[in-house]
């Protein structure tokens, strides 16, 4: 095999590859696959549900699901790969077709030849008693009124011109595609370099780490975030929340401090990171005081002051109680218990969950232990919950949006419209024959209408 052969083979495979990537069939194939994968993704139950579903399934299915990241299709590498392929496909399609379209867009139109105008289907003739000069004047009036640009040629008894507009709108499709490319590029950049998480700050406290949504890991922000106050605004005379807001101070060293209010639908931005008021909650402040009662006599046998996470041992010496958490609104089988402390009672290596609703002091009797617990005194404070988001691709995505929309508008509703006119000396002296036709790259009906409009214009002009 000599070099010439190798070059030939390389060229051949190159061409085949190019044809493959520049084909509209690939576009439709990718659209279909991405849409199908998205459909599948909406029916996936999330990581925990998916793991339950996989329990007891054959090993290879579990491994396949793991490799394909089926629990999180939209963030899987192969989904990103499909979208990148779509991008490559669009780029290749554009390189394949854009040069010839650019040639047309750059071309200066010529006045029509006699045979060109004869070949157009919607041509019309009109014998006018205007002189040639009057005819030209009248036609130019029409072109001016309709903002058509005129390219003309004039001889003693023959005038011809092409008048047109919207030649550049042939690029509409490419504008749309460029917008789409920007959009997916911005999306990928955001996905690779950004993060999303949540930060919860009680009133008058300061935080500096974000809990990431993806893996629940902590991320340090390099600056501190303080919540001055948190407030829920209600609708007049009702208890329905209308909005909620927090006053936040960002601090990055002595010089760099920024204070503002974040509320629902009005995020804040600091250091290229966005903070969104996404929720709120209430937390225990200080210790809660609990009392332990004998289930038979209702007599108080002990009193405890506990933090969340603390464990105490009951007077019998073998039962332990671990206070787990405080919930401002706890539901048990659709029944709302309101403010409730949750914990676990450990007895003889058995773990029994315990719910201690503040407004229902006898509730713990249902647990049927030797003792029951009652909540006596505690304080809570609000914390604000802010979603934290860093995404440097967002500006690309937004410009992609705008360009995509304008591209769609141009390619759907605008067209390249040409109007051809030839004026000849008529049979009688001082008479002029009009021959005219129109064409459009998209809208044939509009081209026909244009011919009629022109006819109406010159005949009316003649009468006046």
């Amino acid at each position, binding site marked *: 095999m000599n070099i010439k052969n190798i070059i030939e083979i390389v060229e051949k495979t190159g061409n085949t590859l190019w044809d493959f990537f520049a084909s*509209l*069939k690939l*576009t*439709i194939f990718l*659209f*279909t696959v*991405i*849409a199908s994968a*998205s*459909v599948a*993704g*909406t*029916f996936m139950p999330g990581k925990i549900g998916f793991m339950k579903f996989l329990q007891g399934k054959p090993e290879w299915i579990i491994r396949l699901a793991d490799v394909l990241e089926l629990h999180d299709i*939209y963030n899987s590498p192969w989904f990103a790969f499909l979208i990148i392929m779509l991008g490559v496909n669009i780029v290749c399609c554009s390189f394949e077709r854009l040069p010839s379209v650019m040639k047309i867009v750059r071309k200066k139109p010529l006045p029509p030849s006699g045979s060109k105008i004869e070949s157009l289907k919607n041509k019309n003739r009109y014998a006018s008693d205007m002189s040639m000069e009057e005819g030209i004047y009248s036609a130019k009036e029409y072109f001016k009124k309709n903002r058509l640009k005129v390219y003309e040629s004039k001889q003693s008894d023959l005038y011809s011109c092409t008048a047109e507009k919207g030649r550049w709108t042939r690029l509409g499709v490419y504008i749309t595609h460029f917008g789409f490319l920007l959009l997916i590029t911005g*999306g990928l950049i955001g996905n690779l370099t950004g993060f*999303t998480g949540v930060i919860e700050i009680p009133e008058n406290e300061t935080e500096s780490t974000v809990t990431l949504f993806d893996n629940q890991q902590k991320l340090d922000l390099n600056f501190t975030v303080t919540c001055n106050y948190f407030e829920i605004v209600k*609708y*007049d*005379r*009702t208890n*329905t*929340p*209308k*909005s*909620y807001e927090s006053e936040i101070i960002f601090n990055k060293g002595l010089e760099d401090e920024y204070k503002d209010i974040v509320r*629902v*639908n*009005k*995020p804040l931005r600091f250091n290229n990171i*966005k*903070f*969104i008021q*996404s929720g709120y909650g209430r937390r225990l402040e200080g210790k809660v005081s609990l009392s332990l009662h004998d289930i038979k006599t209702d007599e108080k046998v002990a009193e405890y002051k506990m933090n969340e996470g603390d464990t105490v041992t009951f007077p019998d010496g073998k039962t332990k109680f671990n206070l787990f958490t405080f919930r401002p609104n706890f539901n048990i089988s659709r029944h709302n218990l309101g403010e409730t402390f949750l914990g676990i009672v450990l007895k003889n290596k058995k773990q029994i969950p315990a719910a201690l609703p503040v407004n229902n002091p006898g509730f713990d009797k249902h647990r049927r232990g030797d003792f029951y617990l009652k909540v006596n005194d505690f304080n809570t404070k609000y914390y604000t919950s802010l*979603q*934290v*988001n860093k*995404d440097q691709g*967002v500006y690309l*995505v*937004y410009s992609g*949006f705008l360009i*995509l*929309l304008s591209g*769609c*508008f141009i390619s*759907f*509703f605008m067209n390249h419209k040409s109007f051809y006119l030839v004026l000849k000396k008529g049979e009688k002296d001082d008479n002029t024959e009009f021959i005219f036709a129109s064409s459009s790259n998209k809208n044939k009906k509009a081209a026909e209408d244009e011919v009629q409009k022109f006819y109406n214009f010159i005949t009316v002009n003649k009468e006046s």
Partner: protein
Amino acid sequence: MESNLVLSVVTFIYGLSALSYITGTVFNKSKIANFGFFLLIAGLTGNFAGFILRWIESYQLGIGRIPLSDMYESLVFFALSGAFMYALVSKRFNRPAVGSVVVTIIFLAMAYAGISPSADSAIKPLMPALRSNWLTVHVITCFIGYSGFAISFAASLIILFTGDTDKGRDLDELNYKMIIYGFLFLSLGIITGAVWADSAWGRYWSWDPKETWSLITWFVYAIVLHARYMKTFKRKTIAWLSIIGFIAVLFTYFGVNQLLSGLHSYA
């Protein structure tokens, strides 16, 4: 509330209009179909009045918001935009058969709004995340898009029923026109939704089921638009694709709420 009464009457008028269109089509009587158009305009007027009335009533209740935020209100708006859009195009594409399908869809939307338990007609205050001007733009653009797709669906059905004849050329044009309107407005709807999500939830896209399904719909119609450039796709294939697109619209609208959960679960 008066608006509910008005809208019930409107449902009835739309029903009669659909019936006239169908009768006119089946018996080939253009006069009856024309009466259907007259009823459609009457229904449209009442629909608009009901929409405005509900808006006013929300102010009287001290809530004060444009009625575009739950299942009931979105169905009423869908009927309004669908009827308006069809009234606009039906002069040029005078096909009572298409009217039969479109007005039946509009009637069904209104009837569903009136009957279904998931479409509660009480005016409720907005939850905090929905209090945004983006809500208005987002819902209006989406539903104009859906209306376009509904009309294209009707045209496609008739194309498939009547066969691939030369006479069907204007139906083909109607189908395409409505798809490009629908596509542009769906794009606008998705984009305004993304911008809004960015300000309300901090992310312009989070693969919420409703978002994803609107994107799936967008892809289906993108396939239609690209398939037109390929000679291998015939008019009937395009019609089928457009029907699949409308099924995706319906799933985005109803199926997602019933079967999947996510950020849009309240509407």
